[in-house]
């Protein structure tokens, strides 16, 4: 009994620094932002804060430009993550195959895009897309005799920034896929081989259940990350032309640090936080319970 009390005391002492850190850096700012979201507050104007209740949220939800950015952001997330899953898993299965030679050289090259700073990737692609001297337009001119204004024309800007995200993060999904495939029990694969299961049945009943947790985690991480994409789009298009690439994180930045409309920006930040929490909850629902993992 005395030993248990002693251990409990020490457990709390060890946890204390982390708890203090969590409260100081996560909980307090979060509550602070939540509080500010109920006020009309502009940090530069010098006007004292005025309590508005839920008005900041209501004005946000009644703003059709907010919904427009919401649509752009969701389209961005859905299309980018879907393409990254498809390409990433194709690459993952390819590199898991015993038939591929030179894996040790090719894998680091494959993972290089996600190791580059997003701002650098954005600038790099801005140059590549340039209608005058960008390499993509060079080849388009050479082979098809056309020039596409990727970042300048409204119809091209969105797919152009989306392509950069897919280029950067498909390797991440490939990595997740490879990690999942390592976890597939060899004896089950051998049993499937003996039973002469088709490729699809083997994938459905043996491979997929094993990789499902990693697969779901990969989707969650990419979804949250794509949802808060800012840097690549900021350096490539600044949200333009017009607002074709204006995602929510960019609106948040403008609201908070260009307009210093701190109250309304806080309400948008809280809305975005709840959307991220919703993603996480969906993930927690989808992730298999311990018992379900047993095949």
């Amino acid at each position, binding site marked *: 009994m005395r030993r248990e009390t002693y251990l409990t005391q020490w457990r709390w002492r060890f946890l204390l620094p982390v708890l203090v850190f969590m409260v100081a850096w996560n909980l307090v700012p979060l509550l602070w932002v939540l509080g500010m979201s109920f006020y009309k507050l*502009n*940090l*530069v*104007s*010098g*006007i004292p804060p005025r309590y508005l209740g839920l008005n900041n949220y209501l004005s946000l939800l009644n703003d059709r*430009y907010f919904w427009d950015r919401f649509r752009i952001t969701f389209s961005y997330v859905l299309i980018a993550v879907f393409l990254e899953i498809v390409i990433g898993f194709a690459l993952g299965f390819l590199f898991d195959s015993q038939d591929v030679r030179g894996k040790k050289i090719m894998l680091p090259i494959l993972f290089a895009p996600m190791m580059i700073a997003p701002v650098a990737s954005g600038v790099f692609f801005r140059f590549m897309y*340039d*209608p*005058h001297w960008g390499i993509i337009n060079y080849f388009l001119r050479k082979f098809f005799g056309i*020039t596409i*204004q990727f*970042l*300048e*024309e*409204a*119809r091209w*800007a969105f797919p152009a920034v989306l392509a950069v995200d897919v280029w950067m993060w498909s390797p991440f999904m490939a990595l997740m896929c490879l990690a999942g495939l390592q976890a597939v029990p060899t004896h089950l694969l051998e049993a499937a081989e003996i039973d002469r299961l088709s490729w699809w049945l083997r994938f459905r009943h043996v491979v997929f259940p094993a990789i499902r947790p990693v697969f779901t985690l990969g989707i969650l991480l990419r979804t949250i990350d794509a949802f808060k994409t800012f840097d690549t789009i900021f350096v490539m*298009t*600044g*949200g*333009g*032309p*017009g*607002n*074709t690439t*204006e995602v929510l994180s960019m609106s948040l930045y*403008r609201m908070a*640090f*260009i*307009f*210093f*409309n701190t109250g309304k920006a806080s309400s948008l930040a809280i809305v975005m936080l709840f959307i991220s929490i919703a993603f996480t909850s969906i993930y927690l629902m989808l992730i298999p319970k311990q018992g379900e993992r047993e095949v």
Partner: protein
Amino acid sequence: MRKKGIWAVVCLVALLVWSVSVATAQEKVTLRILGIGGWYPSELALKLAPLFNEYAEKNLGYSVDIKADFAPFTALYEKAAAAFAAHSDAYDIVIVDSQWLGAFSTGGHIMQLNELIESDPKLKEAVENMYPEHRAAYMTYPDGSDQYWGLPQEGDDLVLYVRKDLLEDPTERANFKAKYGFDLPQTYEDFRNLDWETFEKVIEFFTRPDQNFYGFAAEYSKEYDFISDHVMSFIWTWGGDIIDWNTYKVDGIMNSDVAIEALEYYVKLLRYQPPGAVTYGIDQCINAMAQGQVFSTLTWAAVGKPIFDPALSKVADKVMVVMPPGKRDKDGNLRRVYCLGGQPWVISNYSKHKKEAIDFLKWWYTDEAQWAFAKEGGNPVIRTIIDTEEFKNLNPWNRAYVDMIPGGRDFWHLPCYAELLLVQQEEWTAYASGQIKDAKTAMDNVARRQEEILREWGFLKD
């Protein structure tokens, strides 16, 4: 005994060194200026700082160390506003854009200068010696009042850079006359009387995509205020306006027929510009001109220097700077109302060196400092200097800079300036890039959204 004597001497020397260092430290003042990165006139303020040090040592009895911090236009407001919001003394003087005067003055972040100007005869004389357009743009908030918050660091306006060599080329002149039936404009005076209808023919003539050469380059970028400067200039030149300056009503003004026509015309000019011009900002315009890719560009007088620098420009000796075209009304009169550029500097209310900051600004408006600024390529504002032929002939853009001041206009100086601006930037670039199909929709959107902002801030009363 001997040891004690040595110790006494050591202590005496240490005391002497300490007292000298303290005395020196007390006399040396560090002034911190926040300026615009990559913007030549801002950088000149730092370049000329040693002259102020000489002046201060000689006339004011202290020496100054001026340190500067820079942020590009797009990040400057964020940096300045964050420092002000935190009541930081990080900067004594901030070079701001004129449109920010309302936000910073109503927030109590910057010093009101009326008393200072009234109490100092030399500064008062300098202020009276400026164009009223400059006082209104760089010093005043609320608009139309006599409350001064800033002083002009540099003046600036939109001017037109054109290829003089092509205009003088006999073959080009003959071909142009054969095609259009009149002569190419050639002199500064020809351009003074030029309207957009005529100039459009000139840029159409020089648009030769097969040679990767185009007639014109202007700003259409969503970044900062790039497209707004130009569209607003066209609206004013076409005879329209952006707001009712008394009631803050926007609907019916911003989306008036004449304003819509001006926007349509400005976007139509893209057909004479290089591919990708819809994202051009200042740098791209200067670059297109300096690299010989365009016949003309409509951009700021303050940034013309690289075009005339042989190390940076392929056309350094082939360019002349003229007044941009005007719009001819039904009576044949030419209207030319373009946006003023330039920036004021303001003194931070949180500065610990206000006296020295004031001394610095007073010095800036002395003839010596203004001439030094002009000789380095800056645009001073004192009329006894800029109205002289000596100044007008000093740099290639000076004459057009001075001639464009009368009638020049500025943005609103309201505290909600950034929000009003973003609406224009979004809607106008959406129209220019094809996201919005017609100019009327873009203008209706601007009017509606700006009225919502003005109502929320309490300026527009229904």
